[in-house]
């Protein structure tokens, strides 16, 4: 029988939750790396026992961890992230030039074809790549160097490269997103890049339709339709049908279109999930009701999913990398909250139940579907 393994990164350690395909009884392993912020963990699709983790703390900085046995044991690997050449400057919050400084790895994206290759999205925004299982990291300098880099500015959470999407049908195509610079795409494996923000509208920047400067919170893509992207922005849910060349707003009837997480049903590429958050100053659900919203039409028409989720006195947030879907026939959807809960739905969102309730603040959720 198939199993699922949920990889949960939290403010104070990593947790690994496992269940069979019924997804109703769970084993909880952890905390691994107790006391450390685990920004992200993700497994190789080529070797599901190979998992990479970003372990960070204000005291000791960045450590990268690798498991070869599905998260039972770990070994530290390379943690040297150096900006190539003259790092230069980007804009600071006040618009003044500020040197690029590495702070942490926000997101790990293992290659779709090689277990030893993995990409790391970092703060201050840059994309790094390792081809030796994380032992050595090299920047893909074309991203910062394509021309708009000096104009990039951090969002409140830091200037983080938080989304990395690999196109399964085109090995040279990679999408990334940066808060608060926007979305970018390469078609040559990372040598050259272009901003893909046409159609985004951000009222709080001097030019609301600028080439860069948009606070993209997360992008999701169904691997079966690699040219179709869904974006949760700092306000607005957006959609592109042409690999990011153009975006249109699909917020539709959402009660609020602010949020962080977004994901796509594994088997239904037009079914998307978001967790609406009240506003950019109040990062919690409307009216204390935790609701996942689902659109089965690729946006615009949304329905609330509430069964099993708290509908009063709930003031948690769901961060950008804290939602995931599994690949079982009845698609499972998972998300973690800043209150330490991890919720799972074994029926595509119709009903939810907490796997765990009292973890530290959840920073990220990924899920593996195992044979």
């Amino acid at each position: 029988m198939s199993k699922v393994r949920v990889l949960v990164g939290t403010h104070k350690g990593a947790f690994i939750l496992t269940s069979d395909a019924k997804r109703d009884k769970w084993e909880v392993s952890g905390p691994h790396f107790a006391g450390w912020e685990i920004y992200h963990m993700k497994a190789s699709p080529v070797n599901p026992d190979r998992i990479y983790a970003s372990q960070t703390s204000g005291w000791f900085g960045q450590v990268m961890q690798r498991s070869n046995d599905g998260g039972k044991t770990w070994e530290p690997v390379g943690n040297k992230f150096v900006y190539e050449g003259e790092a230069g400057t980007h804009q600071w919050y006040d618009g003044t030039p500020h040197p690029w400084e590495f702070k942490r790895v926000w997101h790990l994206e293992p290659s779709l074809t090689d277990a030893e290759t993995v990409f790391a999205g970092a703060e201050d925004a840059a994309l790094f790549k390792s081809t030796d299982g994380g032992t050595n990291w090299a920047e893909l300098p074309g991203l910062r160097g394509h021309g708009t880099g000096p104009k990039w500015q951090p969002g409140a959470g830091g200037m983080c490269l938080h989304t990395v999407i690999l196109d399964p049908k085109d090995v040279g195509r990679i999408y990334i997103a940066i808060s608060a610079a926007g979305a970018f795409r390469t078609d040559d494996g990372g040598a050259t890049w272009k901003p893909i923000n046409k159609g985004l509208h951000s009222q709080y920047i001097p030019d609301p339709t600028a080439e860069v400067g948009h606070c993209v919170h997360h992008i999701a893509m169904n691997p079966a339709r690699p040219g179709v992207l869904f974006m949760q922005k700092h306000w607005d849910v957006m959609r592109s049908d042409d690999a990011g060349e153009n975006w249109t707003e699909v917020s539709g009837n959402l009660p609020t279109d602010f949020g962080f997480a977004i994901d796509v049903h594994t088997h239904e590429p037009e079914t998307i999930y978001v967790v609406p958050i009240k506003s950019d100053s109040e990062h919690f659900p409307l009216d204390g009701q935790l609701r996942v919203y689902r659109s089965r039409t690729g946006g615009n028409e949304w329905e609330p999913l509430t069964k099993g989720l708290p509908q009063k006195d709930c003031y948690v947030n769901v961060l950008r990398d804290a939602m995931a879907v599994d690949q079982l026939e009845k698609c499972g959807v998972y998300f973690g909250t800043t209150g330490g809960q991890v919720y799972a739905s074994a029926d595509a969102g119709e009903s939810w139940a907490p796997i765990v309730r009292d973890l530290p603040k959840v920073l990220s959720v990924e899920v593996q579907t195992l044979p």
Partner: protein
Amino acid sequence: MRTVLDALEARYPMLRGTIRDQGTLKRRAFLRFFACEEDWSHEPMDKALPEVVAEGKEPLLVIGAIAGGS
């Protein structure tokens, strides 16, 4: 101090970047060095440690600052 930290990192490569910045080799802001009950955090890296430390009779302590965190 520099030679001690160089030797420590050579023996335990996973510690690189966790005590000193990878690039500048400066002490990380929330790490502190102590030797013989004195705070050596702000001493030059090339200053000679007390003899008792150099002889291995007393340790060089590398401690995370007791900052509140969250």
